[in-house]
């Protein structure tokens, strides 16, 4: 008897063909859904980024790389770096947001891990609640906090930073505040998973060897937290680059990020080709970010 075609898979006697066919029936609906509504349209975005905007906002199938040159700043009025600035600003804001979140997340996680085990749930819940609160609510709430009638804006007015009676928004500061407040839980939660399981024996060993506080942190604590930190950074940096709600509500027209730019093209400006080009630029930045993260998580161990 030859078993060339038949095999036993998890106890079932069948052929490879029949198994693959059944697997396809199961996986196809979901896969096709994603393919149809995301994967293929994304490829289409690439195509559309090379088309031209018609006079009434429709797509003219005239192919050129004009949208990209425009993104790089070249237009009929000469060269301006406006769009490049927006791209740069997005990365810049994302970078500083992530950095501040990391600096705040470590003490927060240590503090919680230091509590008695029963109390920890309470503190974790305190982080989880903002995490699950709607982004729009969390962002607009800052409009309230930075309003002219509240102490913060009044204090800034007294210092002369802003005119009397005006709010602390729209401003870069407001955007940063909103971003950090949004993403802090995203860094803290995966980091906490590592900090909770920290092997303090290594820290004791470092202390025994008379290491200073900074060295203790760098050699005994940091390596153990890299996996969770890596997850947290990915969950923060990449979405932060494409963030739209926070800069829209707190930054206004003068402090645009990539997300706002894209939204504008698909909204009021009705310039889908240009919007597609900017989306592609953001995708490229995202892929670069993911690649860097993958390289670093490789050396830190499996995240």
């Amino acid at each position, binding site marked *: 008897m030859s078993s060339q075609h038949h095999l036993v898979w998890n*106890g079932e*006697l069948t052929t490879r063909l029949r198994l693959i066919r059944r697997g396809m029936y199961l996986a196809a609906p979901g896969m096709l859904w994603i393919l149809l509504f995301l994967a293929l349209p994304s490829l289409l975005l690439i195509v559309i980024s090379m088309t031209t905007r018609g006079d009434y906002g429709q797509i003219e199938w005239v192919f050129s790389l004009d949208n990209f040159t425009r993104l790089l700043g070249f237009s009929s009025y000469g060269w301006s770096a406006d769009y490049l600035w927006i791209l740069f600003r997005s990365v810049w804001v994302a970078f500083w947001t992530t950095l501040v979140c990391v600096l705040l997340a470590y003490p927060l996680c240590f503090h919680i891990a230091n509590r008695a085990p029963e109390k920890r749930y309470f503190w974790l819940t305190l982080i989880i609640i903002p995490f699950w609160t709607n982004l729009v609510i969390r962002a607009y709430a800052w409009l309230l906090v930075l309003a002219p009638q509240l102490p913060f804006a009044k204090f800034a007015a007294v210092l002369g930073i802003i005119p009397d009676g005006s709010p602390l928004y729209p401003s870069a500061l407001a955007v940063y505040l909103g971003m950090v407040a949004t993403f802090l839980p995203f860094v803290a939660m995966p980091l906490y998973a590592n900090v909770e399981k920290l092997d303090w024996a290594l820290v004791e060993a470092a202390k025994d060897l008379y290491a200073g506080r900074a060295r203790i942190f760098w050699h005994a604590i940091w390596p153990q937290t890299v996996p969770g930190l890596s997850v947290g950074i990915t969950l923060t940096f990449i979405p932060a680059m494409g963030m739209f709600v926070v800069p829209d509500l707190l930054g206004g027209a003068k402090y645009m990020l990539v997300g706002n730019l894209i939204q504008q093209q698909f909204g009021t400006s009705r310039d889908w080709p240009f919007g597609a080009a900017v989306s592609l630029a953001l995708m490229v930045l995202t892929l670069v970010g993911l690649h860097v993260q993958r390289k670093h998580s490789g050396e830190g161990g499996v995240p």
Partner: protein
Amino acid sequence: MSLEAYAIYKNYGEVEALHNVDLVTERGEFFTLLGPSGCGKTTLLRIIAGLELPDSGTVMLTGDNVTTLPANERNVNTVFQSYALFPHLTLFENVAFGLRSRRMTGAVVTDKVMAALAMVHMEDKKDRLPSQLSGGQKQRVALARALVNEPEVLLLDEPMSALDAKLRHAVQAELRQLQQKLGKTFILVTHDQEEALTVSDRIAVMRQGRVVQCAPARELYERPVNRYVADFLGKANIIAGRRAEGGVETELGLLRLDTPPAWEQGELAIRPENIVFHPERPAVNGLRARVTEAFYRGDRMEVWLEPGNLRMSAAPRRGIAKGDEIWIELLPGALVPLHE
């Protein structure tokens, strides 16, 4: 005849797991496949269960060819190494699984399940979940779950590897008693030679996909066919020699043996317990040896002797100590010529 397998070949890519393996078991026999990991014993068991398909060969169950019969239609059941109890079902439902899957219902199921649980002394825990059980208890449930279906043959895949040593001995004895009571064919896979000797009627020693020797336990132990089998089932002293008039000429002298060897040159094996202490020179196969080491093992002394780098198993009351010079006899009936 119960379960038979003929000319079984199985390859996994480059690796040859089974090479021309034959297996014949009798009804009501406790048969063991013994060998180190990677020798193919588990593969063979899975082929019998229907969980693997051989590349070629035939599997027959009570005379019927079941080689291409799916696992869920074969009248064999398996006790898995990990027990594979269904974590979401109570013990009762676990045991009832094989009955319910064949659409049995009602009092028939209840009676059979309770009888099976009673057989393994777990009837009072029927509503517990597997997560609440110890390893030994899980194993018993796995046994009941398999036996309730009254299979022709019960297959056991290293069922005691997860148990601690003391429990293992108790379970081995229980398993043997159970098998005798039921009168069913059991096929056990293990790497533990002591276990094999304890429970089995016949043992097949395997190595790299081949059956090296298949014989009743006693014969396997006392008459190993080659060095591999001799070494695998307990300890053996190996003595090289050349056939001569009256026996075998070795560096220890001329040794008489009951079964003359078929070869001109070769090796003899003798178990430590068959090297016997004598107060004076023995009549046959006597040797004056010097004790190089003596280890107290509680129930016996393990004695190292020169010449010949021999290991002897002696009663502690002999009072043998390191440095002694003693007379020993190599029992002629226990000297076994080995083949390749």
